[in-house]
């Protein structure tokens, strides 16, 4: 018997058939009789075990309900799941990640249908990433397929996957802020209202956006007729699978439409470093990681992941990178995928990080509750917050050291060409932004265990440990 009480995950309330609990670093799920019967029916087909062994679905096993104490006594079945290294949300994914998740979702559904199983929903929150590999986390979304049934979650799939991808692909607007503003994705009527006429020349865009919206509008005025039409017809399994395959082909070809010249996409090759500076930085980071050996490293301002890779090569177990540049993030994701790295790059504006939000402001956890690493890297970041976003230097330092007990922070002084560019067309109101002030403020709360100046302009790396 465990000493602690299980803690119900606040976001687990939409499906009345199951609830998720955390207990001592393990994830448990209690199932009602109906959900348990569906789970057993799915398990009997053998597809669940196959998908778990192939890492399409998180490891799941039935356990003694007593593990959840009183909660377990009222449950028909209790499952234990593996815990993913870092929980992320679709509004934190790059275009490449969202597309990868969408394709994975369709592939999973196609595989399930071959076994006579379907998915209850199409929520993007049921997918997580381990490195660059998507994985499905909600086994209670699986249930036996009934011949002739419609894809109940088609609209949800469109709003949570297809429309956000089209927003970026057709209009050049990244989905992140829109998705964060509406946790259910980009609504059908809004996507239709945004659609340019030329996008409708693609019949698949026309079908899933324009036509679906017109039908929805018509249905809202002709309730009985619409319901009768829906009941009269059905969708054969062949047509169901054809619909999934057709969406897959459509999404596979979508590409992000970027404005010319991403800020940081080419940072790794077009920055203001000399080669020697870059090498010195790599050595400093490598040496720090060898000492710290973090299980979870946060790389703030990860760009395309150069130093995340250095960290992985020197002993970090898992790296979560954050950046606000779409092209850099897409490149980082492709790199992680290509090289099978334990590296998860995520979209994050660190001056406006993901908040606690959703129902009771508990449904989706803010970055502050999740981003707790054993160590962090904040390379070439401080000046973007302190000068680029006018955040006082002491607050920048407090925020950074609050995310990990040890780390490496780079200070870029005003003499550096990068900061010179930032100040070129604005008044310098940052009289406190000096190397001395930075070192004094960092030293007040941490022990500076190593310091190295790596450029002629005075760029300096500090390795700190909390006092």
């Amino acid at each position, binding site marked *: 018997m465990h000493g602690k009480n299980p803690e119900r995950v606040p976001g687990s309330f939409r499906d009345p058939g199951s609830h998720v609990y955390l207990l001592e670093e393990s994830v448990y799920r209690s199932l009602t009789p109906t959900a348990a019967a569906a789970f057993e029916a799915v398990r009997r087909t053998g597809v669940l075990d196959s998908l778990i062994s192939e890492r399409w679905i998180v490891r799941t096993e039935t356990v003694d309900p007593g593990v959840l104490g009183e909660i377990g006594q009222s449950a028909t079945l209790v499952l234990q799941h593996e815990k993913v290294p870092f929980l992320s949300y679709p509004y934190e994914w790059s275009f490449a990640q969202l597309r990868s998740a969408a394709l994975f979702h369709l592939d999973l559904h196609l595989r399930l249908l071959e076994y006579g199983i379907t998915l209850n929903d199409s929520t993007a929150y049921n997918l997580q990433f381990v490195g660059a590999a998507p994985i499905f986390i909600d086994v209670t979304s699986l249930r036996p397929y009934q011949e002739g049934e419609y894809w109940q979650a*088609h609209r949800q799939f469109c709003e949570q996957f297809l429309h956000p991808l089209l927003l970026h692909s057709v209009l050049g607007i990244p989905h992140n802020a829109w998705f964060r503003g509406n946790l259910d994705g980009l609504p059908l009527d809004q996507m239709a209202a945004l659609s340019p006429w030329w996008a409708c020349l693609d019949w698949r865009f026309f079908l*899933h956006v324009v036509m*679906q919206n017109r039908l929805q509008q018509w249905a809202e005025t002709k309730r009985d007729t619409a319901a009768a*039409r829906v009941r009269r017809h059905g969708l054969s399994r*062949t*047509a169901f699978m054809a619909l999934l395959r057709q969406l897959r082909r459509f999404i596979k070809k979508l590409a992000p439409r970027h404005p010319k010249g991403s800020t940081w996409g080419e940072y790794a090759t077009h920055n203001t470093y000399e080669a020697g500076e870059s090498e010195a930085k790599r050595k400093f980071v490598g040496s720090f990681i060898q000492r710290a050996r973090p299980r979870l490293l946060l790389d703030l301002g990860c760009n395309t992941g150069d130093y995340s890779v250095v960290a992985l090569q020197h002993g970090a177990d898992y790296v979560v990178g954050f950046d606000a540049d779409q092209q850099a993030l897409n490149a980082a994701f492709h790199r992680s995928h290509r090289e099978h790295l334990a590296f998860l790059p995520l979209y994050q504006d660190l001056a406006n990080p993901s908040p606690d939000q959703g129902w009771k402001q508990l449904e989706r956890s803010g970055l502050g509750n999740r981003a707790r690493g054993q160590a962090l890297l904040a390379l070439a970041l401080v000046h973007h917050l302190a000068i680029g976003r006018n955040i006082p230097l002491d607050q920048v330092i407090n925020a950074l050291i609050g995310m990990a007990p040890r780390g490496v922070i780079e200070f870029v002084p005003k003499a550096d060409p990068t900061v010179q560019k930032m100040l070129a067309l604005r008044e310098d109101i940052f009289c406190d932004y000096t190397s001395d002030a930075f070192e004094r403020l960092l030293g007040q709360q941490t022990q500076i265990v190593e310091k190295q100046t790596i450029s002629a302009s005075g760029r300096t790396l500090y390795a700190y440990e909390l006092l």
Partner: protein
Amino acid sequence: MQSYLMVVQLLLWSLAWPVQEAYAYLDPGTGSLLLQSLFAIVAIIGAGISLFWERVRGLFHKRSAGDATPERNRDAREES
């Protein structure tokens, strides 16, 4: 061929479908279900046309290929 037929049918069907100003929230999924019912019908029509086209092609193919194709194989191809 199938794609173009599908586009033409969808366009005609969509233009013919009366759209009035919505006055009440009904069910956010009804449009999706109607779309799928249409998709199912178009898929059946498309499959029928495809089958018909294959048979027409098969007739010409049979004439051009003469008796070179054994009867047993031709039947098997038509069934697949």
